[in-house]
């Protein structure tokens, strides 16, 4: 009872004026002694300096580290030298965009829990979506009919993808795997029976994508790696190491000739990879928190990212730097998913504040804010012919916007 009394007296301080004294006594009481220092640091800074038992690094290591840092600074200088103008300045000569009328044209209801991922079929109307309750559903989004449904043996199916032929879908999540299900024309056939396990990671599967063929899948994982797999044999064709933390997203370059893709991770880095060699050929680190989504600009010369720091950014591969930031003071929740319109003029961003913000890519301004979802927007993709985009949300629904 006396504990409760104390707690009450702490809570009931005049809420507008919580003095430092009050905060201190509150924390002093509630935290165990060992965490005391941590508690106080919590007010003043965000990270307590953890005293690490460090062995003194030897000479070579220190010198190497210094060399590495010098090169990094030099690189930043080189990049900065070519920054002679801002994108939005050059874009001043382009006409501004008027009001867009974008509405929800279809609402797909049927998932029993949070929608986590979706992908379009090349036929421009079918989609596959996956959810926290383990269900993967294939829809004809045009008619809103469900055509296939699979129940995965795990919850949190965070990734799904449609095969280029339209004859199969891939999915995975907390099971650390990516599995491929051929889609049968016979609706009664049990899809789960034909399941093929392709990828094996050591942590959750965050994203997957077929390359330009049904025979290869590219995956990213919470184990910090990306990997390319041969679907038929399950053989690992190439692995990609370089992220220092979970990889959350990936996107293949839209080129007929190139073999590259970009990935984003919890290490705040966006890496561009050579699929053939497994090498990281370019790296960008300007976000202040996890990168949840990456998507190529349609020409393949640039890509956009969406992050928990509440910004979306544009990186150009030829300039080798970040070239635009899409943000607003009133947007404080993270961006979970991004995609471009067909011409690259618009960037659609799904956010954790339940909204979709539409950005003018060239001018850097926000063109529209779309309300409708009743919980976080977790996934967003433009349809293959650019006539609409689909958003999936924690509110269990998917919406088609045009």
């Amino acid at each position, binding site marked *: 009872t006396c504990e409760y009394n104390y707690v009450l007296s702490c809570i009931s301080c005049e809420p507008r004026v919580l003095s430092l004294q009050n905060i201190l006594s509150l924390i002093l009481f509630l935290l165990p002694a060992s965490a005391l220092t941590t508690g106080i640091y919590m007010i003043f800074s965000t990270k307590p300096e953890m005293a690490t038992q460090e062995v003194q690094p030897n000479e070579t290591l220190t010198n190497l580290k210094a060399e590495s840092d010098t090169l990094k600074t030099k690189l930043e200088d080189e990049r900065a030298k070519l920054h002679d103008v801002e994108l939005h300045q050059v874009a001043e000569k382009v006409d501004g965009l008027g009001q867009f009328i974008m509405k929800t044209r279809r609402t797909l209801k049927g998932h029993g829990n949070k929608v986590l991922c979706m992908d379009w079929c090349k036929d421009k109307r079918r989609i596959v979506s996956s959810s926290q309750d383990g269900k993967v559903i294939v829809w004809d989004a045009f008619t809103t009919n469900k055509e296939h449904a699979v129940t995965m043996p795990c919850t949190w199916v965070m990734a799904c993808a449609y095969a280029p032929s339209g004859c199969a879908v891939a999915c995975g999540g907390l099971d650390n795997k990516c599995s491929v299900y051929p889609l049968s024309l016979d609706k009664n056939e049990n899809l789960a029976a034909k399941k093929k396990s392709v990828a094996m990671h050591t942590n959750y599967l965050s994203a997957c994508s077929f390359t330009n063929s049904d025979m290869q899948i590219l995956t990213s994982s919470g184990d910090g790696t990306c990997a390319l797999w041969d679907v038929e044999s399950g053989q690992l064709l190439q692995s990609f190491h370089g992220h220092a933390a979970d990889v959350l997203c990936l996107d293949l370059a839209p080129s007929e000739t190139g073999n590259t893709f970009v990935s984003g991770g919890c290490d705040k880095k966006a890496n561009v990879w050579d699929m053939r060699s497994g090498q990281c050929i370019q790296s960008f680190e300007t976000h202040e928190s996890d990168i949840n989504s990456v998507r190529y600009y349609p020409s393949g010369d640039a890509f956009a990212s969406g992050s928990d720091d509440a910004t979306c950014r544009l990186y150009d591969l030829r300039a080798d730097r970040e070239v635009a930031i899409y943000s607003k003071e009133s947007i404080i929740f993270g961006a979970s998913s991004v995609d471009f319109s067909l011409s690259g003029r618009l960037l659609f961003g799904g956010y954790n504040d339940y909204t979709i913000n539409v950005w003018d890519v060239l001018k850097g301004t926000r063109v529209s*804010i779309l309300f409708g979802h009743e919980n976080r927007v977790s996934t967003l993709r433009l349809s293959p012919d650019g006539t609409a985009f689909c958003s999936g949300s924690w509110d269990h629904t998917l919406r088609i916007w045009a």
Partner: protein
Amino acid sequence: IRHYVMAQTNSYRQSSNGVADESPNMLVYRKMEDVIAHMQDETNGIPVRTVKSFLSKIPSVFSGKIHFFIVTVKRLEALHLGTLMAAHGYFFPISDHVLTLKDDGTFYRFQTPYFWPSNCWEPENTDYAVYLCKRTMQNKARLELADYEAESLARLQRAFARKWEFIFMQAEAQAKVDKKRDKIERKILDSQERAFWDVHRPVPGCVNTTEADIKKSSRMKQPHKTRKSVYGLQNDIQSHSPAHTPAPEVKEPTEEEIRDQIQHWQAQLDRHRLKMSKVAESLLSYTGQYVEYDPFFTSPEPSNPWISDDITVWELETSKEPGQQRVKRWGFGINEVLKDPVGREQFLKFLESEFSSENLRFWLAVQEVKKRPIREVPTRVQEIWQEFLAPGAPSAINVDSKSYDKTTQNVKDPGRYAFEDAQEHIYKLMKSDSYSRFLRSTFYQELLQAKKKVNNWLRRPDV
């Protein structure tokens, strides 16, 4: 009407490695708390007052017309952000369990910092049971349990049947203490406590803002900061939730890793970079060129299926007769003709009519190999070699000697990329030679003019 520009995010909190270690949730909480601080500012903040209502007083409230204090030009957006902040528990309507911000005259109260989500609350069901039990002991109509709360209490009674006596005692003790407190203070505290539970045990149908993205929650960096016990009760449950694994120790990079890093920086430095002005022009020109193909800018002919429910435009695309707009697009660059199956077909047709199709057929064959299962690759590679590159090949292509030598080597141990160099060389040839001939040919020009339609002028989507 006073408009406020939100102060720049307190940099002291985010710089100096603060950002590096803040989990995504914390980032958002800090930003919301900045807004709260602004709203609670002594001089410029929202006036909080005691309102006289019928026979009693309502202490410490502010009216719902506060959206001006949340920075943004659009009212709808401000209300939405305000609703989110209420849903996270930073302030709450005094007469509703449902946490939203409405722009009517209803009253709201600030939540005490003790209950802020940034304190990493994960209250246990035992605490919730004590709370609900305590509520039933208070003989006030306004404190009566809502239906969903009564259901929860019944469930908890079943679940905690064995320790219910203990829970009951706690509730009783707390109720006793509460009775002795100042009436006004009680009102405020009760509402704040209720609002806390509205966040952590929301009304069915309302969003539970404490739900976390499992990808992020499994990375909780400071599990000892998690607060599970609201009332200082002893818990026999472990203090760390099983979902929280301690963050891996940040390892010092090894010598090899640093050497790799140095190599990486060096390779980056050697890269050829373009000036921003050039890059910007290129982005502008690409967008400008494709805007007439972008359905968000130029309505497709005859209509956008999603808007009109008419799928004619999709039916037209599957027909073998390419429309004029589509043919025009092939002229933008060789990639456009290569990625459109009809374009590829027409390009091939043209080259065959000139008896010069071997380059394109080679290129297509190599693309195909990369799409096959790995098992089929060695055979296919041999087939391609025989057809296009071997001495006396029926469709001999001309490759520079360097690529030829490399390819000869590759074919001995055939992988998916055996023909990469040769393919690159052929691609450049096609781009400069075959492709330009194609565009200039009567074959292509006739296709371009085949359907004499009026051009689509750039216009707004027709809704």
